[in-house]
C-alpha cells in the first residue's frame, strides 16, 4: 500500500510539472501570442512594450522565465498578475472558499438525491416507477448546466421573484464567516443547479450496482436467514454498491473543486476558482493561469489519494493486510 501511494504521488507530481511546462510553452511559444502586447493595451509604442517586457522578466530566456515564475509562486509567494498587477496567491485564497462552499453544498444534495432515487428505482423494479425515475435521471444528465442556471435565474430573480422566490437574494456570494444565513440563501439555487447532473448520473450508476449486487450469493444467504427486506437493502446490498459510488464521488469532487464549476460560477456571478481560471485564460494572464492549474492539479491528486484510502476502508477485499 505504501509503495503504491508513493508511486501514485510521484506520478502526480510529474504530471503537475509537465502540465505547467506545457501551459507555459503554449502561452509563450505559440506565434502571435505576446503577453507584453496584451498588457500594453491598444496600439502600444515599442518602448512601452520593451519596458513591460523588462519589468516582468519577459526578455529573459524561457527556462529562466519558467524558473522565476515557479520561484515567485512557491518560495517568495509574490507572483504578480499581468492583467491587474496584484498578487496572485491572495486571489486564489479569496476564490477558494467560494468554490468550496458551492461544491460542498451541491455534493450533499447530490449524494442524498442520488441514493434516494437509485434505491427507489432498484426497489421498484418491475413497476412503471423504475423506468420513469431512470428517464428523469437521463433528462438531468442531458441538461446543459449553464442553461439550467439561466432558467433558474429567470424564475427566481424575475418571473416568480415577487411570490414564491422572494427570499432569493441577488446573484453573488456572501462569506460564511460574515453572515451564515445569507451565505446559505445565496448558494441554495446554485447548489440545486450544480447537483442536477450528478444526481442523474449517480442515481443511474447506483441502481445498476444495486441490481448487480442483488444477484450475489451473500444477498441470497441474508434473505435465507430471514432478515427483513429493509435490512437486506441497507445493510448488505447498498453498502457494497456504495463502493463504486464513493470512488466516483471523490474524483468528481476533486475535479469540481479544481475549477470545473466555472460554468455555474459564471452564471451565478460567484467569483470562485473556476471564474478566476476562466478570466485568466481569456485574458492570457499567465501567472494566474499557472497558479490555478497547479492548484487544480493538487486537488485532483488529493482527491485521488482520499479515494484510494476510502476504497480500502470500505471494501475489505482490497484492504492491505
Amino acid at each position, binding site marked *: 500500500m505504501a509503495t503504491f501511494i508513493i508511486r501514485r504521488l510521484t*506520478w*502526480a507530481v510529474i*504530471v*503537475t510539472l*509537465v*502540465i505547467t511546462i506545457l*501551459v507555459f510553452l*503554449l*502561452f509563450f511559444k*505559440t*506565434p*502571435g*501570442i505576446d503577453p507584453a502586447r496584451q498588457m500594453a493595451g491598444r496600439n502600444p509604442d515599442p518602448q512601452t512594450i520593451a519596458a513591460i517586457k523588462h519589468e516582468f522578466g519577459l526578455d529573459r530566456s524561457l527556462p529562466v522565465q519558467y524558473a522565476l515564475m515557479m520561484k515567485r509562486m512557491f518560495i517568495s509567494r509574490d507572483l504578480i498578475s499581468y492583467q491587474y498587477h496584484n498578487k496572485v496567491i491572495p486571489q486564489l485564497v479569496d476564490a477558494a472558499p467560494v468554490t468550496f462552499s458551492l461544491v460542498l453544498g451541491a455534493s450533499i444534495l447530490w449524494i442524498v438525491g442520488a441514493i434516494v432515487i437509485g434505491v427507489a428505482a432498484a426497489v421498484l423494479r418491475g413497476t412503471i416507477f423504475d*423506468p420513469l425515475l431512470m*428517464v428523469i435521471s*437521463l*433528462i438531468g*444528465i*442531458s*441538461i*446543459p*448546466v*449553464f*442553461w*439550467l442556471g*439561466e*432558467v433558474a*435565474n*429567470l424564475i427566481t*430573480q*424575475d418571473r416568480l421573484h415577487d411570490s414564491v422566490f422572494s427570499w432569493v437574494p441577488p446573484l453573488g456570494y456572501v462569506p460564511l464567516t460574515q453572515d451564515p444565513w445569507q451565505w446559505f440563501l445565496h448558494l441554495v439555487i446554485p447548489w440545486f443547479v450544480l447537483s442536477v447532473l450528478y444526481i442523474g*448520473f449517480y442515481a*443511474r*450508476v447506483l441502481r*445498476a*450496482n444495486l441490481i*448487480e449486487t442483488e*444477484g450475489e450469493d451473500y444477498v441470497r444467504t441474508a434473505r435465507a436467514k430471514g432478515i427483513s427486506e429493509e435490512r437486506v437493502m441497507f445493510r448488505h446490498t447498498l453498502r457494497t454498491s456504495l463502493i*463504486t459510488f464513493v470512488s*466516483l464521488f471523490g*474524483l468528481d469532487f476533486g*475535479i469540481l473543486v*479544481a*475549477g*470545473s464549476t*466555472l*460554468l455555474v460560477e*459564471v452564471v451565478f456571478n460567484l467569483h470562485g476558482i473556476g471564474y478566476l*481560471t*476562466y478570466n485568466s*485564460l*481569456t485574458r*492570457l494572464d499567465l501567472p494566474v*493561469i499557472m497558479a490555478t*492549474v497547479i492548484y*487544480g*492539479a493538487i486537488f*485532483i491528486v488529493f482527491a485521488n489519494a482520499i479515494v484510494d484510502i476510502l476504497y480500502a476502508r470500505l471494501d475489505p477485499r482490497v484492504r492491505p493486510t
Partner: protein
Amino acid sequence: MAEFAYEPEPELSLGPGERAEAVAGQSPWRLAARRLWRNRVAMAGLVLFLLIVLVSFLAPVYANHIAHTDALQPNVNGTTVVNGKTVEVIQQGGGPLGLGENPIGPTWQTNYFIGADQNGRDVAARVLYGGRSSLLIGIGSALIACLIATIIGLIAGFFRGLTDSALSRLMDLIWAFPVYLLAITLSTVLLTTNGLQWGPIHLDASSLWIPTIIIGVIYVPYVMRPVRGQVLSVREKEFVDAAIAQGASNWRLVFSEILPNIITAVIVLLPLMIATTILTEAALSYLSIGVQPPNASWGTIIQDGQALLYTRPWVAIAPGIMIVLTVLSLNLLGDGVRDALDPRAKVRLRK
C-alpha cells in the same frame, strides 16, 4: 438466475427474454440490429435525433420559404407584419422605463415565431441554423475522438510494452487536465492567434473546424482506455495466435483479426460521445470561445439571449430545449445500442 440449457457460442450472450433457439445461427450484427429495433425507447431516441437533424438541415428552407426572415444578417431597422399590422422588429424605447431597444417578442406566427434577438434576427430560424453547427461539431468531434482513440488504442494494445506505456502515460497526462479547462486553454490560444496554420492547411478563427478539432482531441483518452483494454484482451485469443502461426503480417493482424472484434466497443460509445461533445460545444460557445460569428450555434444563441433573459426569455430558452432534446435522444439511443450489442454489460462509467 436463469440457467440456459444451450449456449450458441461462448462469446454470445442472451438478452433478457430472448430464447436461445431464436438467436442460434444469427450473425452478431443482425442480432444487435434486431434487439435495437425491438427496443422501443431506443428507437424513440433515434427517431427524435433524426428528426432534429432533419429540421436543422432544413433551416434555409424554413427561413426563406416559411418564415421569410433572415437568420444571419442583422435586421435592426426592419419591419415585419403581425396580425395584418406592420411593426418594427426592434422597438425603440420599448425597454424597461421606456428606454433602450426592445426586440419583438414571440408572435406565434411563421415570421418571428419566438421573437427576435438584439440584432433583429429571427430566433426560430436562428435556432435551426445553430442546430446545424452544433450537430456538425458534435458529430464531427465525436468521430475524430473515436478515430484517433481507435488508432492509438490499437497501437498501444497490439504492440504492448514500451509503446503502450508511453501512449497510456500521454493519455493520462491529458486526462489529468479537467476537460473544460483544457478546451478553454486551446480555444483561447487558437482564437488569439487568429486560427490554425499548419503547413498548407489554414483554418480561419471563425471556422467550425476549430471547435470540432479541439473537442475531438480532448475526448480521445475517454475512448482510448476502453479500446486499449479490448485490444489487450482480444490479442490473447487463440484466433490471433492461429493467424500469427499462419504467418499473418502485423498489418493484417490489426485490421482483419483485432479491429472487427473491438469495433463494437467504439460503436457503443459513439452516441454517448456525440451527446457529450454537443454539451461541450454548447458550453464553449456560451463562454464565447466556441463557434465564432457570423456562425451561430445553440450555445452562442443562449449567450445572445442572456442579455435579454428577463425581457425576452425565449431567445435563451429555445436553443436550450433543443440541446436537452438532442442529448436526451442520443443518451436513450446509446443505452439501447449498448444493450443490443452487449446485453449483459454493466452500466459503463464515465471514466
